[in-house]
């Protein structure tokens, strides 16, 4: 059907021969499976960091802000640096799911779910700082305009810190419903696949009874579109309002009209760097390389180039205006000669190196398609963007208008501990998410499968654009028989080329497997009953009489043969033989057989 046409110049977004069912299976796999060891290790580390941070927070609140490294001159340092950093990280998620939806970018489909999760979790971290950096956080509810017994004493709506309250809470809540609404069809898919009653119950609860009616989908798409249209100005406004914390002040270096767009660009810049960091690991860990391809990584790197460029232009502008203004105070701002050569020179140069120079390497196509390099650059950008906020806040405050109040800042272990705690908390949430949520929006990926899937692009390349995309054999699949095609293919009984010591006909399922079996036997040697004597295979670990019989069926009789088996042979045996022991149980058959054959 021509409606699935896509320019052949575009690379496939879903690689491998995927059917709709394959998409479901692969996305549900991490949820249905069990967490592996490395997951538990990383989770434990994150949990420890989180608990440590929690301890630091409790210590701060119960003892006083004085346990931080702040002083009378520098009243904001790590707290607000981390706040702005986390808010910034959150922005890429909304950008991917909202802005790219408005621009109809199909590549967003594989990354939007995780990017949105990242947004939510990052904003949760950010939301901690406005509370814990208060001197009296138990009175935090006073920021809300609630009628009260003080003659109804209201809040002051002139303050950007109050705008922050509205901006962050709107941002978090709207992102949350946007994310959740998108999750309903995917939870429904998990629900309908679930076999354990508890899992079924949970996903029934989470999926809100989603049934996938045509009317539901019509509304769903409209709601997504309108939410994207609302979230796009929201994401711009939120970081704008965060930048107002500085831009509306009279502090030299803060008072700057360039801040709103520059902060937003920086937020997208750092946010995409964080998405890269997370997805590069996730695609590997949960085997989703077919969905999050190198192409996705390259596209995100291109966004990083663009926003990094905008940020760099902003640096140059700030630097220029600092000089052009002729104001002597501007010479100590975070982007000035004073900053480049002053006591915080290392922070200045860290910013220039990490955000300006290193990302330039992504202009080279080879490097931006290189996964390892992307990962390194992403980490560097995250560091650099932390320094950007640190410089804006601390460097500008440290050298204000009155030289008698110039001061330096150095963090205490509590400052650092709280920051580490939020990183830990972020990863605790993200790791739990990766094991319980469908990390890719499967319903969306399925809509682009026919236009951007490798299988269908090949089909069009070979048979022309008017080729039908209809699955040629629709009746083959029964509810329970969703098995790979090559396994269900029937075995040809009249194939003459087969070893007579092999009685594998009863257990091989396809021609392919038979060929693989023959290939294996030609490698390990064929057993000849006239000249050879069969070994007692039950001496091998985990082999009983029944398994020995099965091994005989596939033509394995001697220890010599077993000692020559390779990894792919074990895979084949695993496919052929029912309840074939796994690698742990059979331990090292090859070594055991080598020892036994020499006896």
């Amino acid at each position, binding site marked *: 059907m021509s409606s699935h046409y896509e320019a052949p110049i575009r690379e496939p977004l879903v690689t491998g021969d995927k059917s*709709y069912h394959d998409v479901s299976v692969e996305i549900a796999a991490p949820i249905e499976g069990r967490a592996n060891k490395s997951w538990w290790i990383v989770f434990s580390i994150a949990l420890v960091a989180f608990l440590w941070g929690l301890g630091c927070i409790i210590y701060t609140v119960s003892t006083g802000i004085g346990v931080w490294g702040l002083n009378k001159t520098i009243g904001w340092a790590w707290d607000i640096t981390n706040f702005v950093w986390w808010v910034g990280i959150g922005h890429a998620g909304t950008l991917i799911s909202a802005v790219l939806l408005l621009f109809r970018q199909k590549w967003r489909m594989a990354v939007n779910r995780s990017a949105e999760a990242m947004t939510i979790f990052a904003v949760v971290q950010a939301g901690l700082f406005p509370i814990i950096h208060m001197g009296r956080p138990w009175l935090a509810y006073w920021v809300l305009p609630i009628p009260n017994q003080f003659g109804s004493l209201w809040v002051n709506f002139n303050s950007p810190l109050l705008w922050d309250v509205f901006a962050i809470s709107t941002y978090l809540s709207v992102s949350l419903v946007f994310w959740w609404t998108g999750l309903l069809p995917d939870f429904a898919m998990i629900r309908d696949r679930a076999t354990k009653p508890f899992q079924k119950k949970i996903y029934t609860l989470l999926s809100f009874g989603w049934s996938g009616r*045509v009317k539901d989908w019509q509304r769903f798409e409209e709601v997504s579109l309108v939410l994207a249209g609302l979230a796009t100005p929201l994401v711009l406004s939120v970081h704008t309002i965060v930048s107002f914390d500085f831009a509306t002040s009279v502090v030299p270096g803060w008072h700057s009209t360039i801040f709103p767009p520059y902060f937003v660009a920086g937020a997208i810049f750092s946010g995409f760097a964080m998405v890269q960091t997370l997805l590069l690991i996730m695609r590997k860990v949960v085997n989703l390389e077919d969905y999050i391809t190198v192409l996705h990584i390259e596209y995100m790197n291109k966004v990083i180039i663009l926003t990094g460029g905008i940020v760099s232009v902003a640096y140059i502008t700030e630097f220029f205006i600092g000089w052009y203004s002729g104001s002597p105070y501007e010479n100590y701002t975070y982007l000035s000669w004073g900053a480049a050569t002053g006591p915080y020179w290392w922070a200045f140069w860290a910013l220039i190196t990490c955000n300006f120079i290193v990302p330039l390497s992504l202009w080279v196509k080879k490097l931006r398609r290189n996964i390892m390099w992307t990962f390194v650059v992403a980490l560097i950008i995250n560091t650099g963007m932390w320094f950007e906020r640190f410089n804006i806040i601390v460097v500008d405050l440290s050298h204000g208008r009155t030289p008698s109040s110039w001061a330096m800042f150095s963090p205490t272990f509590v400052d650092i501990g709280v920051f580490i705690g939020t990183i830990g908390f972020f990863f605790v949430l993200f790791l739990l998410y990766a094991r319980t949520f469908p990390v890719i929006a499967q319903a969306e990926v399925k809509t682009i499968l026919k236009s951007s899937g490798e299988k269908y692009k090949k089909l069009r390349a070979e048979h022309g654009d008017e080729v039908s995309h209809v699955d040629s054999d629709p009746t083959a699949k029964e509810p329970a028989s969703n098995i790979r095609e090559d396994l269900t293919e029937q075995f040809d009984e009249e194939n003459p080329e087969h070893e007579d010591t092999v009685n594998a006909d009863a257990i091989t399922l396809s021609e392919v497997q038979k060929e693989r079996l023959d290939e294996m036997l030609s490698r390990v040697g064929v057993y000849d009953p006239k000249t050879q004597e069969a070994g007692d295979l039950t001496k091998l670990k985990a082999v009983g009489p029944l398994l020995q019989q099965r091994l005989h069926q596939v033509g394995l009789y001697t220890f010599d043969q077993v000692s020559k088996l390779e990894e792919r042979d074990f895979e084949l045996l695993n496919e052929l033989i029912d309840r074939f022991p796994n690698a742990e149980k059979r331990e090292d058959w090859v070594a055991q057989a080598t020892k036994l054959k020499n006896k």
Partner: protein
Amino acid sequence: MASKLIHAIYSDDDLLMQAVKQIKGAHYHIAEVYTPFPVHGLDKAVGLAPTRIAITSFLYGLVGLTVAVLMMDFMMIQDWPQNIGGKPSFHFYENMPAFIPIMFELTVFFAAHLMVITFYMRSKLWPFKKPENPDIRTTDDHFMVEIDASNHNVDKMTKFLYDTGAAEIKLIENN
């Protein structure tokens, strides 16, 4: 609900689109279509009216804007018209630049949340709602058309649906 329904299951979205057009052409009544993902153009093919949910969102946004303006005007200008840092508090418009961020945020807040709530109510989605898709494969890779079969010859219909490429055809009787 119709007393007799036919469930025709398709395994491909292109096939489904084609079949829906044929079923409409044959003047059978499509009661419902269940799909695992949004099939673009299906709502038009089935003949659904466009949704008005975007309009509600616009109205909710206006409500949000009104709430923001009334709230800040009352609190900052009417109730406690104080001098905070020299900001003019004699009329709303004098200090309006400082109110714009919150006016904007509340507009978005109301527009987004009330629209989503409307969507959940209209589509009958909530945490303890029981799923209603008759075949669980319709959230994975199958597509089901539910057709009203009362007052029709079931055999003839079955033959017709088979010709449209249905992989499975089931007769459902509600008594």
